[in-house]
């Protein structure tokens, strides 16, 4: 945790209320997000217990499974879930804008909000459990055919779950992660996973009291030993499982009238408080002004959404169980680049985040105390103005290191640090400007962003007296070198896929939009059957099923 965050948390502790970590919103928040609060059965993987979902806070849809061990009931649940989710996920498929002659991108993308990181992980898991299933129509031989549209939902949820791992992406957001990005509470990040407790700190007014309210949320139980505020899922409270849910499920097994409704009602009781907390969180986030560079990151999300749409339309198989070496390396490199880009953009959008970088010596605010013109040595001398700066910050610089600032046009202007002995030849530096090399006195030579003329474009050189924020990091970090095609996978990574069948055309290979890329699109759908070492891992065959698939 950066020191700035530790300080904010300590201040929150002392004040009994959350403290801001940002001054603007750093994640895209759709006008109509779909909130999804899932519940899972303890100890079972891929056995959902229920979910509350919808785009209208007053009318959530509650879906439940009265007996999670029953495959048919689970299929009914998944089928209902598909009917409820797919219209939202498919709502933005048609409206596109033409970016280039051969490329169009959807103008919007549907957004999913879940309570916490395990919730987002559960969405991935649900996707994984559904995408290889086959319907009776696709394969009459398949045992236990799945309802229509369930495999399709699996592919969408897989895509959203996978996209959520890309730094700065907003297709699938975990609420506790978004809130803790913007505010610091007086508790640890582990305790922040509880949406209710987190909100208790955020709700507290100037009089404080967030600590006691959070404790109340965490621990207060009613006379039946049940938590007054249920956990934010997807796991349920063991006391609820043992004392409330299990007897109700037993009654269902005994075929008692009204027992299914009872389970439905009980699960609704667990979900509704989390549902309300989700919308309260949305309200809190909406009060923040949007960061300037959110839109460009959201554009990447739109590209990712469009790429998935195109894969579905092209009839590509579901995402493989495991990525081949090249796809995995591509995803990793995209995520690294996006991480760097996110950090740069958040700092540029938000002076409070920039303050963290200034504290770390990765940026500094300085006043221009003097400036004089020099020219480059080339055949066509270009202006290379030198600025004398005075700062109270402590940038970690070395002669020749790069610094950047934002020009009024929004573009980045590069400059380089000069060693203290790089005095101007004509000695025009004003002695009173402070000796270079003294603490806080710096020399920068602007190396670009001034137009092509012999004189710098107006406004492209800071004036004496201006206070300018410089960063030592790039504003638009680029990824590393390009990776080989899958056919050229080096032997160190298992060699090319040894398959007689040709690889499907990479219909959805990386596209480079203006400022936005297709995210991790790569060729996730691209591998043919036998992979490198483990044929099953790369196949898209359904999972083997047993008569009794859960115990």
């Amino acid at each position, binding site marked *: 945790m950066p020191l700035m965050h530790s300080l904010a948390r300590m201040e929150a502790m002392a004040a009994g209320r959350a403290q*801001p970590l940002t*001054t603007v919103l750093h994640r895209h928040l759709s006008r109509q997000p779909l909130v999804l609060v899932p519940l899972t059965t303890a*100890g079972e*993987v891929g056995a959902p217990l229920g979910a509350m979902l919808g785009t209208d806070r007053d009318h959530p849809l509650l879906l439940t499974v009265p007996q999670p061990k029953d495959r048919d009931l689970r299929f009914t649940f998944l089928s209902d879930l598909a009917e409820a989710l797919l219209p939202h996920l498919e709502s933005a498929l048609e409206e596109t804008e033409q970016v280039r002659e051969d490329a169009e991108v959807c103008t919007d993308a549907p957004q999913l909000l879940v309570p916490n990181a395990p919730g987002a992980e559960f969405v991935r898991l649900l996707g994984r459990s559904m995408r290889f299933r086959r319907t009776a129509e696709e394969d009459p031989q398949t045992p236990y055919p799945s309802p229509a549209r369930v495999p399709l939902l699996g592919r969408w949820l897989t895509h959203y779950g996978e996209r959520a791992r890309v730094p700065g992406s907003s297709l699938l957001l975990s609420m506790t992660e978004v809130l803790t990005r913007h505010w610091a509470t007086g508790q640890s990040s582990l305790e922040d996973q509880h949406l209710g407790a987190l909100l208790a700190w955020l709700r507290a007014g100037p009089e404080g009291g967030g600590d006691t309210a959070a404790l109340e949320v965490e621990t207060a139980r009613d006379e039946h030993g049940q938590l007054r505020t249920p956990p934010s899922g997807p796991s349920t409270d*063991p006391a609820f499982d043992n004392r409330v849910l299990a007897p109700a499920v037993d009654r269902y097994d005994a075929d008692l009238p009204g027992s299914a409704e009872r389970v439905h009602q009980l699960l609704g009781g667990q979900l509704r408080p989390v549902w309300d907390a989700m919308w309260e969180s949305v309200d809190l986030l909406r009060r923040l002004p949007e960061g300037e560079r959110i839109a460009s990151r959201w554009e990447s999300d739109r590209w990712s959404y469009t790429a998935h749409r195109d894969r579905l339309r092209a009839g590509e198989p579901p995402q493989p169980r495991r990525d081949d070496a090249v796809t995995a390396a591509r995803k990793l490199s995209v995520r690294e680049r996006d991480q760097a880009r996110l950090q740069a953009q958040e700092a540029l959008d938000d002076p409070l985040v920039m303050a963290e970088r200034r504290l770390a010596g990765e940026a500094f605010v300085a006043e221009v105390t003097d400036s004089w013109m020099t020219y480059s040595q080339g055949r066509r001398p270009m202006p290379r103005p030198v600025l004398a700066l005075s700062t109270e910050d402590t940038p970690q610089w070395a002669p020749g290191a790069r610094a950047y600032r934002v020009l009024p046009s929004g573009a980045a202007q590069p400059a380089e640090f000069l060693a203290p002995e790089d005095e101007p030849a004509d000695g025009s530096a004003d002695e009173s400007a402070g000796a270079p090399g003294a603490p806080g006195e710096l020399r920068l030579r602007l190396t670009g962003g001034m137009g092509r003329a012999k004189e710098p474009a107006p406004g492209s050189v800071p004036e004496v007296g201006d206070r300018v924020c410089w960063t030592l990091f790039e504003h638009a970090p680029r990824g590393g070198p390009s990776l080989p095609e899958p056919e050229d996978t080096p032997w160190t990574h298992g060699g090319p896929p040894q398959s007689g069948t040709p690889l499907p055309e990479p219909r959805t290979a990386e596209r480079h939009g203006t400022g936005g890329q297709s995210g991790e699109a790569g060729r996730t759908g691209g591998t043919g059957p036998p992979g490198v070492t483990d044929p099953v891992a790369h196949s898209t065959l359904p999972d083997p099923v047993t008569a009794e698939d859960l115990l």
Partner: protein
Amino acid sequence: MGDVRLRRVKQLSHQRGTESTGADQSALRDRLAALRGPGRQPRPLDSRALTALAANPGCSRRALLDSAGVDKAALAEVLGAPANFGQSQFAFARGHAFEAGATRDGGAELVRLLCAHTGQAPPDPQLLECPDLTAEGPEGRIERTREALALAQARGQTGAEGGPGGWSVLLHPMVRLTVAGAPVCLEPDALVVDGDGGVTIVEIKSFPILDGSAAPTKVGAATRQAAVYGLALEAMEVRAAESVLLVCPKDFSNLPTAALVDMRKQLAAVRRQLRRLTRVEELTAALPAGTSFDLDLPPDRLAGAVDSVPAAYAPECLAGCDLAFHCRSQARTGNDPAVLGRGTRAELGALTTVKAALDAAHSDPPPPEPSDPTHPAGPSDPPDPAVLALRRAARLRAEVLGGDGAAGADGAGPAGGGPCR
């Protein structure tokens, strides 16, 4: 957040052995029994509790209470800060059913999974033995396990008539490890002794291996647990294989699948951490006279007894220790920065309370030293770098947020944020 509900799957219901191995041991045992309260059965430690303890070796409170076999859950209840976890019966039922399925047919399935990973030829089912390990009391079970293990290794090394050695599967053996001077009985899921007399520890877990990978935190916990068994076997002079066979459900099914997980690192780590645990004798010696953790005592006396043993609280305790809520509220009252995480406490260095850190952050820098060539650094001590960094951080925050950046400043709440540019 580890899976808190899976902790303590197996709690041994038997008492720790009563066999006396020396006058010191017996004196210590009497002392611990007195701490627990007269006539109380000790709550047995299991390997999960051990690994949790080893993960926080600096916590004397936990080391002492666990060694004395005090029921920490009940203790927390009396102190008014019960832990928030238990185990869901759904998870419990699933775990048991899976284990029963994986160990059926005398462990033939376990042997098959092991052979698939080691490349050994699976033995003739006739040559596979699954000795009965039931015996009276933990001491009896440990003795029985020792015999069965020796026999199994002998069987493995001397195959019948020069043929391949026989294999054995020991289901739920019992082994003993001395932790912080007190003996602890442990029950591994299974041990497989192969045709060469080699012993492999088997750990059966109900989290899935999905597409060849499992949750790293859970695998890590399972491996550390197996490492504790490995140490216990070492104490019995049995060298187990350095990889544990982790048996888990495959994907979404109930079919068992397995992975061999190297546990050399965990063995070294657990061994080191267990050695670091302050010896219980020293902890008991440091207690005030008359200290008791008898649950029948009035809560304030119990609280006093608990608080007389120092704890090392960290948020991670919440996932594994019954007393965590008590220690947390104490740490909060004491303004301990550890409530925000171990990292925060480490960052603050000599500033051991939140108040001290905030005071330092909002303090004014000392006036510049008068330039004195004989004392270029000034007469005072060099400033604490943590203080300097905090002061800078507070100044930068205040610069952006307006106001003095002090706690509770208006506009610092969620609704505010203040002018930012």
